[in-house]
């Protein structure tokens, strides 16, 4: 299997394939994450949401996928940082006059956007994921259920009622949108999927995806802060 390792971690094209495939997996995860979180909008004091988080942390299949997810986040981040460092070295001296004409704007800043997203992710996971795993969350009982459930809904409300955090989440999602805007289309190009017939489709789905997913996430703190009392 040395050939596969060499391709994925040493070849220039293979290393981009890793970025592409891990990026696609993370983009699929975002869809599931968003759909699950939409349950925050149900007006039932968080019952559906808490039952869902219990399922997500106890189902063996989901648990296995979640470990793959953690590994993928690290792989995408570490590989991305290494690529950016080597790219900077490969450029060497920069130009005295720089022109930004005809260049994809976000492509140049993928590493900067990515690092900000990673920092956001660490804070985000500390606030919710770690509380669910190790924190002392209040327990709630629901009629017809045998045992008590961890009330993850409580810290969600608490964080999203805090204005600085609402602003932090909204800005982070705008940065995510920029990263996704280039990342979506770039993932296909890196895999060699570039075809006149399908390019417009990839482009439009990419634009829709990079707007809808972050927008879906960012209306949650806004909804909780302004509407849910």
């Amino acid at each position, binding site marked *: 299997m040395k050939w596969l390792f060499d391709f994925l971690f040493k070849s220039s094209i293979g290393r981009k394939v890793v970025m592409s495939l891990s990026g696609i997996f993370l983009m699929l995860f975002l869809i599931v994450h968003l759909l699950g979180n939409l349950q925050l909008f149900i007006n039932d004091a968080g019952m559906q949401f808490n039952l869902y988080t219990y399922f997500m942390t106890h189902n063996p299949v989901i648990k296995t996928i979640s470990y793959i997810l953690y590994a993928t986040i690290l792989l995408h981040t570490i590989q991305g940082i290494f690529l950016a460092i080597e790219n900077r070295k490969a450029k060497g001296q920069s130009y005295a006059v720089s022109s930004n004409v005809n260049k994809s704007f976000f*492509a140049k800043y993928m590493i900067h956007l990515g690092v900000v997203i990673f920092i956001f992710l660490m804070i985000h996971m500390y606030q919710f994921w770690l509380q669910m795993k190790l924190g002392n969350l209040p327990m709630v009982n629901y009629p017809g259920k045998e045992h008590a459930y961890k009330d993850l809904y409580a810290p969600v409300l608490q964080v999203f009622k805090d204005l600085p955090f609402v602003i932090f989440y909204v800005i982070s999602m705008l940065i995510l949108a920029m990263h996704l805007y280039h990342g979506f289309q770039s993932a296909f190009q890196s895999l060699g999927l570039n075809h006149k017939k399908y390019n417009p489709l990839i482009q439009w789905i990419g634009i829709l995806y990079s707007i809808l997913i972050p927008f879906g996430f960012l209306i949650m703190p806004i909804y909780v802060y302004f509407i849910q009392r």
Partner: protein
Amino acid sequence: MNLKLKIWRQKSQNAKGAFETYQVNANEHMSFLEMLDVLNEQLIEEKKEPVAFDHDCREGICGACSMVINGRPHGPNKATTTCQLHMRFFKEGDEIVIEPFRARAFPVIKDLVVDRSAFDRIIQAGGYISVNTGQAQDGNAIPVNRDCASKSFDAAACIGCGACVAACPNGSAMLFTAAKVSHLGLLPQGKLEHTSRVRNMVKQMDEEGFGFCSNVGACEAECPKEISLENIARMNRAMIGAVLTSE
């Protein structure tokens, strides 16, 4: 027309370079290189070292002229090499900044001349067809799909000037290598060695210290021969296929 030129001067590869400012009087019918010739004559008369720059055919097909004019490889015009860029696109009194191509794999040898032999070594690694493909009539006897022929021809328009590397923020040579891979791999004679060619050329490209492609698209925008990013996707596809299916 009077122009103010800010030109990168560097004695040798390891010497420290710096910009120097010159005044030159050119006319609008001159090509950019002819304008530099005028400057050099002026410098020689003043017993100063003329500015070294690469040039050869001066008709836009050899790929020798390499310089970054006001931040853009081959200057401001689309699909135009430096030698085909005319002074009528500049205005009286303009300040023009001229720099060498910048990339780790293209070290500056002198002034505006960079060492692009890394491209030669990429070609040597696989940019050829090793069998005798015969005379013209033999070529005509092999049916070639019209679409493949056009795409191959478009890729073959690459003159190997290195503007793609110069324009890329990562100093990546993906567009050049992909153009060569597409040019040969799309035709029946070149198809036979397609997989080994891709692997060998990409390996050499990596060893030369070029950066990675982050799909910025600056290469395609600055290419004087308008080589498409589609070629990079074709090379990615071929490389993934070659790695997965070869023995």
